[in-house]
């Protein structure tokens, strides 16, 4: 036990205790604690094992940059691996488990990797898993997969809800430290719509972690007062617990608000997290800075921490991370840690200051060692002492159980890079600062801009807001800012202490100074190469701590400056974003919208099995009692249509209302066959080509009046065809008087098919409408009324090849009409049929559908070449005459019939001559649709066959290598049923 809770201080509620568990141990903390501060308060230093070598690791930082203290939070389905303990807000009942260890954190068997370290250096993956090739998938991949990663997913569905939303602001302020609060206050007081987001649960940033005064109050109290003022402004939106993770195009920022992560369970209905898409005119990035360590031998031992974090634990959380601490720094900020800890009554053993001319902070009981460096540490599972080498090259040990290290501060400029902005090296702070190419509308203030002092942060925040307000046409109020410290950093760069033992740069990925040297030695010295060769800066912390020190080391090795060495840049997200938040409300069956047909309630009541067709749910078939296989249902439905009458909801076919004095000319130009002279009250089958001559869609179009057509499309192409027509109307022929609107949803359309369909329709259509064969022949259409005056449209068209009609009524009556048709047709054998039977019927009739209109086939392929009129121009007609599309041996639509009724024939099979080898060179074509025809009692198919029209009667093989089928088929006409169309004209 080294760390402990201090008697006084900290922004925690000591009156209330929160119980939590770490690796099964029962511990307590207080509201205001993070998991990390509570663990330290309980004396827990060892919290995890490193990725590669399984080295014992402790808490390094107090913020989102934490590379070590990654735990699995919660349990069961809510278990979340790789949670940074430093940002996990403590709640009552929290459970956390350490990761990447077996059997226990204190004794980890895989720590043996550490002994093999010489074999596991940078790039070892690229050298090790090469031979033999047969091992790649069977041995190496499973091995690497088992070793890779830290935490494990639960594998169970996420029980929580997530949401998303949209915010709009004049000014987005990212970070609520001194700069962000000053900016938000200025903009809020000026009346601008402000969104202020901070990833912490307590706004104030470093003001909460420091002890110096702001005016006549503490930083934390000033921050609290500023937040209270902002909360009182209706036009200011405060988003605590919200990480802005990305700067995207057009002033759009992505942010995740952790609504319920700090609660034991989200209240019912409440989302756990909300993904906000923030659209803003201006942005001020006030994300602060991240402290960086100095690398030295064995600097990864639990107890070695960032100096600023060490004092943050003391100041903000009232926690002394050790009984006896030391500080190793190269700048004045590190001295604050020694001062603050001493002020809290913690023993400070030494201030080891790398600067030879370092000022003596005069800390009671502490040795001041200017020009000294730490060259080693001891302690198996946690720090017990450090070895120091002084300016006069004396080496000795100093007992301490916590060491605060400060190598300087790196501006948190990640979001400035999200649109390819490159940071620039700033010698004054010995760090990369935001470059000139910021995302449009963004300004950077405070420590994120490389301004080191609190005074500077406050004033740069106000100034950035004033500039933004000016651009927004508002006037900034006078700066009403408190007096604050304005000390220089006085930093002397030091990246690593040379030595023979391993000195760690990236603690998350186990990358050492030696690895950087090895990368450089092996030709991977360029920063982008170094990153990938060593894995430096990858995984959850994305190198927030490691990147700049590694660049410093690389610069030393190559003898170049860091500015010349350059840096990798950052991409979103700034910190990990859960996939649940990205998915938002769209999960499970509600992942995408579902469209239901008007007769859906009726179909459900019939026990229909539904199938997804694009967004639609359609009845696939209607099983009846005693039917044990879908084929039995489908065969019955097909035969019922051919013998009596069947009913099918065909509402899903697209319906486009086309009106205007030029409607006929328009339709005539979008279809390749003639439509100009289609008579009013008649329907015609139309074939629509793309500009390149390939078939786009087909369907029937009815002429309801001289200036009024209704076009139907296939279900899948309803949207694309409408878009195509709108493009033609607006862009190709703006001179035509044409108006388009979709009416797909407005009408319930029911196919009534079979020899008894007319009899059935006569029972529901109101008297006075003559639908006899003479008055209403094949391809007639017209307005009728049904069931006592309901407006309806009747089309005599047939997909099945039988006498058939489609009857359309206002959608709200579709369900009742279906019930009425079933009831009135009971004695005629009226049978509902689904999409499977529909497909069998059309294959038997040789009608093309999705399988045939696959975006590759031409009218010639479909043997509809003569439909492409040469007497007029239409979209695609010229391109359809290209020689390449009109060769002698072109693919042509044929029918196939299996020679053996019990054989199987599958769509996707390829056709071969009986003796040919099944290889691509001998491929004669493919099967586009297949079904069992109950009418013929054999499997049949539609297929595209080379020179197919002339091959009727030939015997071929349909081969499906995936399912191992090799089926003997006879080439037939694609029209298996009634090739002369006598039935449909009956």
């Amino acid at each position, binding site marked *: 036990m080294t760390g402990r809770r201090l008697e006084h201080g900290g922004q925690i509620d000591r009156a209330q205790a929160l119980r939590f568990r770490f690796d099964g141990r029962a511990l307590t903390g207080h509201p205001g604690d993070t998991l990390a501060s509570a663990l330290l308060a309980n004396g827990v230093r060892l919290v995890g094992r490193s990725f590669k070598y399984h080295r014992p690791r402790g808490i390094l930082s107090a913020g989102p940059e934490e590379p070590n203290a990654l735990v699995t939070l919660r349990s069961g389905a809510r278990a979340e691996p790789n949670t940074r303990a430093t940002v996990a807000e403590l709640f009552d009942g929290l459970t956390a488990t350490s990761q990447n260890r077996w059997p226990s954190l204190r004794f980890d068997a895989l720590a043996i990797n550490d002994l093999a370290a010489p074999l596991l250096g940078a790039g070892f993956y690229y050298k090790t898993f090469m031979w033999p090739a047969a091992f790649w998938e069977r041995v190496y991949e499973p091995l690497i997969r088992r070793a890779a990663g830290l935490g494990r997913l639960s594998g169970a569905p996420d029980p929580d*809800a997530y*949401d*998303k*939303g*949209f*915010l*709009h602001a004049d000014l987005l302020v990212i970070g609520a430290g001194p700069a962000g609060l000053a900016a938000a206050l200025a903009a809020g007081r000026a009346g601008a719509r402000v969104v202020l987001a901070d990833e912490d649960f307590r706004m104030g940033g470093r003001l909460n972690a420091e002890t110096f005064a702001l005016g006549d109050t503490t930083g934390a109290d000033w921050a609290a007062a500023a937040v209270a003022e902002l909360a009182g402004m209706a036009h200011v939106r405060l988003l605590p617990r919200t990480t802005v993770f990305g700067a995207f195009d057009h002033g759009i920022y992505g942010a995740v608000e952790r609504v319920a992560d700090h609660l034991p369970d989200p209240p019912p*209905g*409440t*989302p756990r997290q*909300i993904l906000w898409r923030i*659209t803003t005119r201006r942005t001020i990035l006030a994300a602060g800075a991240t402290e960086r360590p100095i690398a030295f031998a064995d600097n990864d031992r639990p107890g070695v921490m960032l100096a600023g974090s060490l004092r943050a634990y003391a100041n903000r959380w009232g926690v002394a991370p050790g009984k006896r601490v030391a500080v190793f720094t190269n700048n004045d900020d590190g001295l604050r840690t020694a001062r603050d800890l001493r002020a809290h009554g913690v023993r400070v053993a030494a201030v080891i200051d790398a600067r030879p001319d370092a000022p003596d902070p005069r800390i009671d009981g502490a040795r001041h060692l200017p020009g000294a460096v730490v060259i080693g540490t001891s302690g198996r599972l946690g720090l017990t002492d450090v070895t120091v080498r002084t300016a006069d090259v004396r080496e000795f040990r100093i007992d301490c159980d916590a060491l605060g290290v400060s190598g300087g501060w790196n501006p948190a400029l990640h979001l400035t890079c999200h649109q390819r902005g490159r940071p620039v090296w700033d010698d004054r702070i010995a760090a990369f600062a935001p470059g000139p190419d910021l995302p449009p509308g963004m300004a950077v203030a405070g420590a994120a801009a490389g301004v080191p002092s609190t005074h500077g942060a406050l004033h740069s925040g106000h100034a950035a807001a004033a500039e933004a307000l000016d651009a927004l046409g508002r006037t900034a109020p006078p700066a009403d800012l408190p007096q604050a410290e304005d000390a220089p950093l006085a930093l002397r760069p030091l990246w690593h202490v040379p030595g023979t033992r391993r000195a760690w740069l990236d603690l998350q990925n186990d990358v050492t100074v030696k690895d950087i040297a090895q990368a450089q030695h092996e030709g991977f010295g360029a920063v982008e190469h170094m990153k990938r060769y060593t894995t430096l800066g990858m995984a959850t912390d994305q190198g927030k701590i490691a990147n700049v020190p590694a660049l410093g080391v690389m610069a030393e090795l190559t003898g170049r400056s860091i500015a010349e060495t350059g840096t990798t840049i950052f991409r979103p997200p700034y910190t990990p974003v859960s996939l649940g938040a990205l998915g938002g*409300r*769209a999960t499970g069956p*509600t992942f995408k*919208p*579902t*469209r*239901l*047909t*008007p007769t*859906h*309630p009726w179909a459900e009541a019939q026990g229909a099995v539904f199938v997804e067709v694009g*967004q*639609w749910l359609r009845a696939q078939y209607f099983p009846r009692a005693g039917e044990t296989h879908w084929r039995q249902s489908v065969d019955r439905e097909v035969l019922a249509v051919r013998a009596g009458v069947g009913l099918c909801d065909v*509402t899903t076919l697209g319906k486009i*209302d086309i*009106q*205007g*004095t*030029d409607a006929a000319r328009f339709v005539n130009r979008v279809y390749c066959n003639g439509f100009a002279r289609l008579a009013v009250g008649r329907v015609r089958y139309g074939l629509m080509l793309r500009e390149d001559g390939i078939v786009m869609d087909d369907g029937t179009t009815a002429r309801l009046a001289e*200036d*009024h057509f209704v076009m139907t499309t296939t279900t899948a192409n309803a949207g694309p065809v409408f878009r195509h027509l709108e493009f033609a109307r607006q862009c190709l022929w703006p001179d*035509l*008087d*044409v*108006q388009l*609107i979709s*009416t*797909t*949803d*407005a*009408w*319930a359309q029911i196919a009534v098919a079979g020899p008894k369909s007319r009899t059935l329709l006569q029972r529901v259509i109101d008297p006075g409408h003559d639908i006899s064969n003479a008055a209403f022949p094949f391809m007639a259409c017209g307005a009728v*009324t*049904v*069931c*006592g*005056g309901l*407006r309806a449209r009747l089309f005599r068209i047939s997909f099945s090849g039988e006498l058939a009609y489609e009857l359309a*009524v*206002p*959608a*709200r*009556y*579709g*369900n*009742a*009409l279906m019930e*009425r048709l079933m009831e009135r047709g009971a004695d005629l054998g009226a049978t509902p049929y689904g999409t499977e039977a529909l497909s069998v019927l059309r294959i038997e009739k040789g009608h093309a559908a999705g399988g045939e209109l696959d975006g590759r086939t031409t009218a010639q392929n479909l043997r509809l070449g003569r439909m492409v009129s040469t007497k007029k121009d239409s979209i695609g007609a010229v391109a359809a005459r290209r020689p390449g599309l009109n060769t002698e041996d072109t693919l042509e639509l044929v029918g196939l019939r299996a020679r053996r009724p019990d054989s199987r024939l599958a769509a996707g099979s390829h056709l071969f001559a009986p003796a040919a080898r099944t290889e691509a060179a001998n491929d004669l074509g493919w099967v586009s649709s297949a079904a069992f025809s109950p009418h013929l009692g054999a499997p049949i198919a539609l297929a595209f066959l080379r020179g197919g029209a002339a091959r009727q009667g030939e015997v071929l093989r349909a081969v499906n290598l995936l399912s191992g089928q090799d089926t003997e088929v006879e080439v037939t006409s694609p029209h298996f049923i009634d090739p002369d169309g006598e039935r449909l004209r009956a």
Partner: protein
Amino acid sequence: MPDLAPLTPLGGTTPRRDRIGGVTIAEACDWALASVTARRGRASDAAGRMAAMIGTALPGPGAMVRSGDWRAVWLAPESWLLAAPLAGQDDIEARLRDAVGDAASVTEQTDAWARFDITAANPARVGALLERLCNIPPARLTPGAATRTVFEHLGVIMLRETDDSLSILGARSSARSLHHALTTVARSLA
């Protein structure tokens, strides 16, 4: 009158009504709808005839008007959606055709849409709901605003008639998905 019983877009015999938190989401089936799109070069003629019929000028982009029983919503350039109370026999298409003659094309749209009326005693709740639904600043959707937008992959028309109400029109076939989205968000805010 037809002797068939209509269903609501959600498939019920009566419109559904959900009260969640301080928000009411009510399926509404009481409007007859039709689109009116001017014929080429006839926009002012069509607009004039429509204004004479409904008693006020047709709205411009992003807006709706209400005049007596009529509501008119701007839909696209020279195109509007007209709404009138749906009373028994639906004849809105015929009435509009009579009014505009050959100056515009009229298409029956009553059954193409599902409509949900969202009301809240506290107008801020309507704004909060909007914030979670779509990328429209609630401050811009002031009374009299009408706009087409997308949420949950659904194309919708949003009508803001008053401060404390919002009507959302979506495709009838996806009414259940629309309703699910609205009630989920309302519960998330409750």
